[in-house]
């Protein structure tokens, strides 16, 4: 049996497959459908300082090869997350690693969430969300080099836990933003959040999504995610978590060969909750077939042929 474990962010991940933020709630919702403690880990729904009501419907719609969503970061807020959601994760996820996705309107918001959580048990670290396309200020930090740098430095000063920054694809060069995060003290990067998109109901001549635009996810964005992971990983020496359209071991291996140390499975869960288990099995099967001992041996192991 292939060894799928990966050591990074000061911890061992029993497999490189995590569930992506926003697609697995706070874990409990999928408890009867996914063997959560047998996967690498999960990233929670975003947690903000105050509860957020979210956007009006429609919030989701299908598009070829994926979906578009504009949930608007609806979440229970820091206090209820700590009292209602985190205890379940602490009790039930002993071997899988938990990252808490953190979002805020201002640097003070992010700081308050991280400070509020930092002494709690039951999670490894944070995924800092600077890349939500579905709220007015969702990509404020993710697309402003100075604001991003200051935010990561501020949070770095607050916690010794792993800080992973989830990047937006919506910048001219993701490598620039990846380096900013690394220099500001981030321990890792998640690449990528959804792409901004829009669908129109031509009969009604109205946007399909209540928020007008939304974030596109699913297999449709896989090649962009692989490319941006490759670019981000090439720009930094901290680990990168690859995200975007993964639904098989082969999809995950594209990200890993491009330089991702871990991957996240998101929208595919909606098609089949067994997706993360299938992805893990696919990676293991590949490793056995190619006689690869450790996942780490595959990270960034892409060969780009010399041009004649």
């Amino acid at each position, binding site marked *: 049996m292939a060894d799928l474990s990966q050591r990074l962010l000061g911890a061992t991940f029993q497999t490189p497959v995590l569930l992506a933020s*926003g*697609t*697995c*709630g706070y874990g409990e*919702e*999928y*408890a*009867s*459908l996914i063997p959560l403690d047998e996967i690498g880990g999960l990233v929670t*729904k975003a947690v903000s300082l105050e509860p957020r*009501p*979210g956007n*009006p*419907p*429609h*919030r*989701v*719609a*299908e*598009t*070829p*090869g*994926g*979906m578009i*969503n504009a*949930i608007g970061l*609806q979440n229970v807020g820091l206090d209820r997350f700590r009292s209602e959601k985190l205890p379940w994760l602490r009790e039930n996820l002993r071997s899988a690693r938990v990252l808490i996705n953190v979002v805020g309107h201002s640097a003070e918001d992010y700081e308050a969430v991280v400070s509020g959580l930092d002494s709690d048990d039951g999670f490894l670290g944070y995924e800092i969300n600077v890349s939500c396309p579905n709220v007015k200020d969702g990509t404020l930090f993710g697309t402003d080099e100075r604001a991003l740098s200051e935010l990561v430095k501020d949070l770095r000063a607050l916690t010794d836990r792993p800080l992973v920054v989830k990047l937006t694809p919506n910048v001219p060069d993701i490598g620039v933003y990846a380096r900013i995060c690394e220099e500001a003290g981030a321990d890792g990067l998640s690449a990528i959040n959804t792409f901004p998109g829009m669908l129109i109901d031509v009969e009604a001549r109205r946007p399909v999504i209540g928020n007008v635009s939304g974030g596109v996810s*699913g*297999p449709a964005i896989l090649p962009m995610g692989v490319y941006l992971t490759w670019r981000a990983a090439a720009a930094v020496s901290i680990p990168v978590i690859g995200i975007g359209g993964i*639904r*098989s071991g082969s999809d995950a291996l594209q990200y890993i060969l491009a330089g991702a140390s871990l991957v996240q499975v998101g*929208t*595919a*869960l*909606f*098609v*089949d*909750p*067994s*997706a993360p288990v*299938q992805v893990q099995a696919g990676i293991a099967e590949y490793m056995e077939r190619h006689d690869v001992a450790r996942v780490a041996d595959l990270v960034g192991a892409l060969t780009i042929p010399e041009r004649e």
Partner: protein
Amino acid sequence: MTPPVRAWGRVLERRKAAADTFWIEVDCPSIAEHARPGQFVMLGTGLSDVAAPFLPRPFSIGAREDDGRLGFLLRVFGAGTRHLSAVGPGDDLLMLGPLGRPFSLPADRSIVCLAGGVGLAPFLFVGAEARSDEREVRIVYGERTGDRVFDPELIRRITGVEPDLRTEDGSLGRRGLVIDDLDLDDRPQLLACGPDPMLRACNDLALRHDLPLQVSVEEHMGCGVGTCQGCVVLSAEGEWIKSCTEGPVFDSRELAWRT
């Protein structure tokens, strides 16, 4: 509520029941075992079916048999329902369920089901269940045109109830809407499922007669289990609540009915 199950179900039967409308029976004992009227199942063809529209679709459970069979009413609206309705006996469907909050059937009232279009589906199950409990149940079922009326013989077979048919063009059953000319003297529990304007009219009817009403709502859905928070409806308190886990059945007083 029993936690949902993910299972492959084998299609046993597919029959055309009206224009663009099919009745599909699937063998899936693990989901059938705990299914309640008003609950739904996400139906899809799985990750390896790359030709499929991406997301699975929610369907009210239309029937449940003790041998593990589940029945679904499928009408073709778009690419997803077209793909699913093309399955035939021997094909497998990926199923997630049973999901959501079922109808709550009070012991002390008769039941009147108000069904608009494919909103008939949950009431096939309600009808069969109420009959087996020897409860009085009426199914008032409306369509725009007669060619879309789900085979009344099949309704009788599934539920044992003679449906009170209405069509807007009068080509089958009584001409009119499901809320027209109802005998509500025995102060029944109203249940409604159908398009939004119909649900609004049912809510007005319930308020006018001071009758209890439960509605089964439909909104675009992603996961079906409460994680993506895509399928929200507005609560009476002004909060977005999930139709998948907090619904799809709501007491009418739990919802905001503003336009």
